[in-house]
């Protein structure tokens, strides 16, 4: 399916794949995020941005059930998460690639791919490995012996192999050379568009993230302080920066850019 900007509104207007409604979550009863409402539709790329401690990772963990909501709810494919356990959510098609990449150093690339696909799926495997041809050569190698970039490719590849409906990637650029990130992020975006995967990215690299995303959501102090179309946010860099550094106008109210 070729992508074109004109199609995006129709895609986004479909039933959202993943939705948080007024979500509050945190640790030991203390909320790290409050009132988080966002949604991801098929083929939509949402960049979740914010300074350290803004609650980005907590939001992601809450989406996959690793952190239980204190208030509000998470809805997957229209159904509330409820008491479903994290591994059941993963089976339902919401996959998180955590910031430690979620790979196993003692296992080979082949074993990772084996784990990722519930049933052997040669077609999908070819499709995914065509995107990351390096992995073909490394099949017998243990993940612990691979470079950071190779490990990150493996992490993404194994997630894609499971045919996710929503793919959530936490700080892919962590520990990677900027060049690799610049190559990988667009590749992942293209895949998401092709397969209609809803993609949520947490990134420190604001510009890069916004350049491939459809929408940007900026968190600070556990609240959404700014949301808008990625293109608009890119144009209004000063607003983004103000949101990042906690300018007064964003302290209490949620800023929204038209568009």
């Amino acid at each position, binding site marked *: 399916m070729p992508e074109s900007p004109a199609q995006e509104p129709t895609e986004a207007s479909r039933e959202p794949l993943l939705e948080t409604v007024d979500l509050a979550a945190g640790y030991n009863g203390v909320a790290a995020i409050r009132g988080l409402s966002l949604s991801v539709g098929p083929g939509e790329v949402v960049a979740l941005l914010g300074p350290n401690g803004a609650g980005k990772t907590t939001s992601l963990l809450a989406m*996959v059930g*690793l952190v239980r909501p204190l208030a509000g709810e998470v809805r997957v494919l229209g159904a509330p998460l409820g008491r479903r*356990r*994290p*591994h*059941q959510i*993963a*089976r339902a098609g919401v*996959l*998180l*690639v*955590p910031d*430690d990449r*979620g*790979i*196993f*150093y*003692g*296992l080979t690339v082949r*074993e990772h791919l*084996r*784990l*990722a696909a*519930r049933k052997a799926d040669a077609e999908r495997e070819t499709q995914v490995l065509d995107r990351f041809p390096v992995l073909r050569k490394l099949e017998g190698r243990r993940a612990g012996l691979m470079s950071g970039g190779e490990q990150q490719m493996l992490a993404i590849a*194994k997630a894609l192999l*499971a045919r996710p409906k929503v793919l959530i990637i936490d700080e892919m650029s962590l520990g990677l050379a900027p060049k690799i990130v610049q190559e990988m992020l667009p590749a992942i975006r293209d895949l998401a568009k092709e397969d209609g995967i809803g993609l949520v990215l947490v990134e420190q690299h604001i510009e890069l993230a916004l350049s491939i995303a459809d929408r940007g959501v900026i968190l600070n102090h556990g609240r959404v302080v700014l949301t808008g179309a990625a293109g608009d946010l890119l144009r209004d860099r000063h607003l983004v920066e103000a949101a990042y550094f906690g300018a007064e106008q964003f302290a209490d109210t949620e800023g929204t850019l038209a568009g």
Partner: protein
Amino acid sequence: MGTFLQFVVLGLGLGSIYIGLGTGLLLVHRATGIINFAQGAMAMWGAYVFAQLRVDGRLVFPIGSIEFARRPTVAVAAVIGLVTAFVLGLVVHYLVFRPVRNAPVLAQVVVSVAVMITLQALVVLRFGANNIDVASILPEGTIHVLDVDLPTREIIMAAIMVVLAAAVWAYLRFTRAGVATRAASENERAAVLMGFSPDRLAAVAQVVAVMIGTISVMLGSSLTGLNPDNYTLLVVPALAVLLVARMESIGVVVVAALLLGAFQSVIGLLVTKSWWPVWAQSGLDQVIPFAVVMVILFVQGKRLPSRGSLQTLRLPDVAIPKLKPIPAVILLVLGVAALSLTTGTYRFGVTTSIIVMLLALSYVVITGYLGQISLAQGAFAGAAGFCLSKVTTEWGVPFPLSLILCALVATALGMLVALPAFRIRGAQLAIITIAAALAIERFVFNNYTLTPPEGNPIADATLLGLNLGVREGRDLSRMAFSLMVLVVAAILVWVFIRVASGDTGRTFLAVRANERAAASSGINVRKTKLIGFAISAFIAGIAGCLIGFSRGQLSAESFTVFAGLQVLAVAYLGGITSVGGAIVAGVLGPLGIVYVLLRGVFDLGEYYPLISGLGLILTAILNPVGIAGATREQVDWVRSKLRRGPAAGPSAETGSAAPRKEPSRV
């Protein structure tokens, strides 16, 4: 040469059991991160069911039994035994191990020790303490190789177990669930994020582990008969094998298991030779696994791999004890009152409770404060006790000196056992210490040249002409003796509180919380551990001496590994981090006042090990801080409520009870 080869092959039988238990231990550790000290006891239950069916056609459950009209055939009985093992694995996983999945290592060790005590007690209650003969499953016979007749049973058995271990290896290597188990053992969260339930994988692993262990015990028991103590404790050499395999390689488990079995068998042959020193005839089969593990740990010098898990909870909090005169006097008065209001067996029970309190206090030092899991405290006590017998009867050393001298012997032993603690910690240290305890028990306590079987009498203590003996004429429990015990205990508790509330106590807590952080703030971690082991072994030694005085003579049965574990059980039950916990432990402890009441009033003495085991499982799951800890938390809670009431505001709460707590992050 021929005899040598025969003994090597005979040893393969024992080696096969180690394969069964070791493979199971490895699998469970991979899947749950728990080192299951109950592996032997769990494997034994199914084998007992099998054996009893073959003996008289009775199918025995933990409660109740079914009588078959005819004895079932070997095959049917074996299947029933395996089904029992299957159910046992599931039950233990879901009721016991799953709730403590994210608990501190200490709680996990304690829970598995509790399962071990419980099953062992249950076997004694349901099947009896005596050896049961088990009909052989395997054909008897010999094959003729190199001019020697070699028994076929051991060879077939080893072959079966090697095949089963290979099957487990293949499961971990080639099946999706097996690969996922390995994956989860490395990074549990990542496995969850890929849609695997570590819980289900763990249940599978637990069941497979129990079944392979049960098969090995069924086969092995037809060679030796079944005996509740032996098979429960076979887990110790199997654990040694596990450490040798660095908890990773099934191949190494198999090779090490067979070598160890063969080696033990050959040692059994060698000790019968005339040139073998008499003093070293007993217990070498247990000393060797211990020595092997020690050597390997030192040669390897690497950290053993530990399993990554989702999250780790903290150890129970420690409240720094303070010397408060009023509660101290109240406790002393209570102690004197309890002693003077009782006579005979009841006063003896109270006295024993005070002694057990001391033994529990030694666990408080080493485990509660220093965070090191030692299962050898009973052995330290025993060493001091036997030393007391020599010192008082042969050398005539007078009373307070004899007590201190023997406690110092225990201290030296404790410092020796502390050496491995420099390198390893957690459950692995627990393995080393239980291996050390077993080695000491078999090599020293059961060694007739060191501790003659006709008894090790201990002369009564006298101080300045005052007779402090426990018996005189028909009085089986003299007040003078009990008061002496109370005074000694009070002194030790006082010293403990001084140490715990001072700088040494703080360094202990720092090491417990985080060794690296402690080292980086200038604490000498090794010295601290050495001091901790020394203090705790000294206290255990005093307790051992007092036990010696109270009995008048000692035998190996006085200080079994199980007795030591039972004290750990009650110490944990009471609360491993406080003197209060030690006191609760003393009251509940083996042969203490509660035991005496259970036996005397309710006639339930034989159920004591079972009750203490079950109580321990429940405590460790429901309430990891122990009884005393929970009470303290409730008292703190009530206090903070009371304070908050009149002050009308949350500000009153800060600065009251809260800062005294020293949280630990482990």
